[in-house]
């Protein structure tokens, strides 16, 4: 189709079952839309996203020679990709498609005003029809993918991901900030549910990684810069010791930067005695037949655990989440150590031993007479240290008794929190973080491993608190995403980018400072030098266009003409021939 062709617009109004049609008079919307300029076909349909709805669009494109399609249904975040594909299958450029949000923006928020909602729906459809008439096709571009992946973090997640990608036949660059691989797991003396030390689990993986022909390892090093875009990332790796820099080109990135065990400063007298330690610190104590008290090296006879230290605290930023691994880890440690001490007490809020085999661990602990006592989060246990002796006092919720216990060692099951440099990592890889401080996935339900930055995956605790067995599954899953990208060899990039009119550009550099993605530069080869867009980096945010004092930058698919036509259609409906009198 050429743009000079007269627009022939098809409008499809979706019922979304009862979701839209229960509030909005969709039949009327479709009828009124039929009277708008350039609209040659208009109808309503039960589910536009269903196969039959999609087929309807393809059929009507052919039947009526449609060259623009408007679907009035849900949020474009939901189905714009679906319908763009459908119009493409119908032979139109995907950017000749326009979506109206009648569900989130109309029926769901005006459920009790069906008439006004219908009016609003008509307004929105009128605006979109006006815009559709001015849409232009934009070529869809692809770029080549460098068949190599970067894995950031050499813990159990990073090791698994690196091995998987390499075993699949692609090169991997693995970067670890510490001098050794193995993360936290390598230091832990007993993993659950299997009775093995962390070292037994990760050492073979480390050996495999070190011996693998396709894996290059940089320990004691950090990624300091990421440039480029999906399929073509330019990575700078810097050695912590020598400051030496390496540049690598990769096609995909897996961020597996893990966590830090929360240091519970200010909680339960943590700093007042060496005998009060975190669960991670307990896990790292050298194995021995007896549990020795750090303060004097004598065997401990009484042991206590407190759960949810720095987790599940409503309103406390970064500590509202459940740390997921601790309940089962505490049950396992309590059960194991009960064999070496006389008494073990576990204070908890809820027992969350949800995993397979975890409930058995909890039952075993109870059978061994580990005492589980529920505390009230609004009335946290008190702990104090006097002359080296620990005393804890709490109210047992179930018995409603005030209890006291003097443990030789107190273990605080402290939260999993992001590592110190998480903000830096987020910035380098353009990741966002959720309230738990960990990185946001692309979709919390259906896309837990990919992120909003195409080509960058997250795995393991980088995404959210979890245990080691869940982490390795994550890692393999993220590796699958990377492998798919590397195996494909090429990938589509965003087409709705900024475009510079060189005749108007005054080379003022405003756009270069404004662009948050580093997509703008000056093309020195042009005479005079003018602004240049690296399209694969551009996210189409429009900041440059808004800042440009000369009006030299156009946002493809969001041109001034397209946007103003919508404003006009809203404010002056009668100007649109066929606009319904109101």
């Amino acid at each position: 189709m050429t743009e000079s062709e007269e627009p022939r617009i098809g409008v499809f109004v979706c019922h979304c079952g009862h979701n839209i049609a229960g509030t909005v008079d969709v039949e009327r919307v479709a009828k009124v839309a039929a009277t708008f300029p350039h609209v040659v076909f208009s109808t309503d349909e039960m589910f536009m996203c269903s196969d039959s709805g999609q087929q309807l669009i393809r059929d009507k494109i052919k039947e009526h020679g449609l060259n623009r399609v408007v679907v009035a249904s849900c949020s474009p975040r939901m189905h714009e990709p679906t319908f763009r594909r459908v119009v493409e299958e119908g032979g139109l450029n995907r950017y000749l498609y326009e979506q109206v949000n009648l569900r989130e923006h109309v029926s769901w928020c005006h459920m009790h005003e069906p008439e006004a909602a219908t009016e609003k729906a008509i307004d929105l459809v009128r605006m979109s029809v006006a815009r559709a008439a001015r849409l232009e096709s934009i070529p869809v571009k692809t770029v080549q993918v460098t068949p190599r992946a970067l894995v950031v973090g050499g813990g159990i997640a990073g090791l698994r991901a690196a091995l998987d990608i390499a075993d699949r036949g692609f090169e991997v660059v693995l970067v670890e900030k510490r001098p050794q691989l193995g993360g936290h797991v390598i230091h832990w003396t007993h993993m659950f549910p299997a009775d093995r030390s962390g070292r037994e689990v990760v050492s073979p993986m480390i050996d495999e990684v070190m011996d693998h022909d396709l894996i290059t390892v940089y320990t004691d090093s950090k990624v300091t810069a990421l440039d480029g875009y999906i399929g073509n990332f330019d990575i700078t790796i810097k050695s912590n010791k020598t400051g030496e820099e390496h540049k690598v080109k990769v096609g995909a990135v897996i961020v597996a930067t893990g966590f830090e065990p929360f240091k519970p400063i200010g909680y339960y007298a943590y700093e007042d005695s060496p005998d009060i330690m975190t669960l991670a610190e307990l896990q790292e104590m050298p194995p021995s037949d007896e549990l020795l008290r750090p303060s004097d090296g004598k065997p401990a006879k009484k042991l206590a655990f407190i759960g949810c230290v720095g987790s599940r605290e409503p309103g406390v930023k970064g500590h509202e989440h459940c740390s997921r691994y601790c309940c089962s880890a505490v049950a396992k440690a309590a059960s194991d150590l009960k064999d070496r001490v006389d008494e073990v007490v576990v204070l908890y809020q809820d027992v969350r031993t949800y995993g397979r085999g975890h409930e058995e661990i909890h039952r075993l602990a109870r059978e061994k007479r580990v005492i589980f006592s529920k505390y009230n989060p609004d009335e946290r246990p008190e702990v104090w240290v006097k002359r080296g002796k620990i005393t804890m006092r709490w109210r047992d919720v179930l018995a409603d008794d005030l209890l006291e216990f003097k443990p030789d060692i107190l273990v605080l099951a402290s939260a999993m929190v992001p590592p110190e440099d998480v903000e830096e990592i987020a910035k380098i890889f353009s990741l966002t973080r959720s309230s738990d401080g960990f990185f946001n996935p692309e979709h919390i339900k259906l896309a837990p491993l990919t992120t909003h930055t195409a080509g960058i995956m997250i795995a393991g605790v980088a995404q959210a608190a979890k245990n080691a067995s869940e982490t390795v599954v994550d890692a393999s899953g993220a590796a699958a995403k990377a492998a798919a990208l590397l195996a494909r060899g090429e990938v589509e990039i965003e087409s709705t980018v900024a475009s510079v009119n060189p005749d108007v550009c005054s080379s003022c550099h405003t756009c270069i400072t404004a662009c948050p993605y580093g997509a703008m530069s000056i093309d020195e080869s042009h005479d005079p030098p003018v602004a240049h867009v690296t399209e694969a980096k551009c996210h189409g945010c429009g900041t440059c266009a808004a800042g440009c004092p000369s009006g030299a930058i156009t946002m493809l698919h969001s041109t001034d003409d397209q946007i103003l036509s919508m404003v006009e259609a809203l404010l002056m409906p009668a100007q649109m021939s066929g606009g319904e009198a109101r």
Partner: protein
Amino acid sequence: MVDTNNDALKSILVVGGGVAGMQAALDAANQGYRVYLVEKNPSIGGRMAALDKTFPTLDCSACILTPRLSEVARHPNIELLTYSEVEHVQGTLGDMRVRVRRKARFVDETKCSGCGDCARECPVEVPNEFDEGLGFRKAIYVMFPQSTPNVYTIDSSACIRCKRCVRVCERGAIDLDMQDSTVELHVGVIILSTGYRLFDVRKYPRYGYGRYPNVITAMEFERLINAAGPTNGHLIRLTDGAVPKRIAFIQCVGARDVKKGVPNCSRVCCMYGVKNAVMAREHDPDAEVSVYYADIRAFGKGFEEFYEMARSRFGVNFVKGRVGEIIEDPETQNLRFEVEDTLSGRILNVEHDLVVLCPGLQPADDLHRLAEMLGLRTSEDGYVEIRDALTAPLETDHPGVLVCGCADGPKDIPDSVTAGSAAAMRATILLSSGGAK
């Protein structure tokens, strides 16, 4: 002799077209492998297709699922075999012969356009299992509006062979004489993603399910609040159609109960219970909503925050305690029971208009047969045993068989999706190294 091994090393069979199986299929297909996706129902989508909203974001389940359905259906490397069952498997990693029985759907998949003329004409109505039997469907039907493939199926046990559908179908797609057929597949790896069934809550006679119509299951609740469900999303009581004002959710029905053979936690019920409680308040802000629980296990990303929001913002009442026998008031059909609020130590005597039982998960019906056929070890509660939780979490005793989703234990949606991706990774590694890794 032709080396037939080559095509098997490029092919993967995924058994089960729910959210885990679809993900495994996509992630393997995106790497260039040929994937056969076998689903026993007429449509892919699994359990997720029937859910209303999802925790913790309250995204509409069908809405986020539908793009996934069409992605699978139109993927050039995926072949869908719906309404089909794996009958026989022979061979090992890299070289497995699989016989799949394609049940007769009495509608030609290649001819049917899903227009629905046949269903409008069909005179037979039977309870719709997709709506947990709360609504009706015809003898010729699609499971749900976004069914994929969008092809009708005749339920032969309900069909009266009146042939009205045959006469009305303009494409001549209906063939009442269609027979079951079999196809032989040659694949290198099999991924089991057979999903789950819900615990039969009748095994707790004290809750009165089946005797008291106002005691329903969580899945029935999902369908009742669903805009595409049998009541168009109006939450009503099954006895009198009244809007329930006092709603109870009872957790751990068929989970963490050694005596009932379900010793483990089902991982999802706490959160779907909390989510449904929130939805009950969303549907009717005046309703009193209580959740009776043992522990609230809000352990996934954003779950604890969601649970907190249910308490503080939505005013859901959480009571820690086991519920005793439920008694129906014969006049009002309201439900009364005693429960010890273990936090206060008080015995509460409560009355509710509607009680929702939140059942735990159990392995899918078909899993036992498949596991036996493939020689896989299963645990006491029927799930496939994996080789090692830390080093081989998707591998089974059979070198060519992997598991994901709920085949090896209960999982929520993100964990199922992740396991699906991971299974695809393991499968493609196994095949790319010629079955050596």
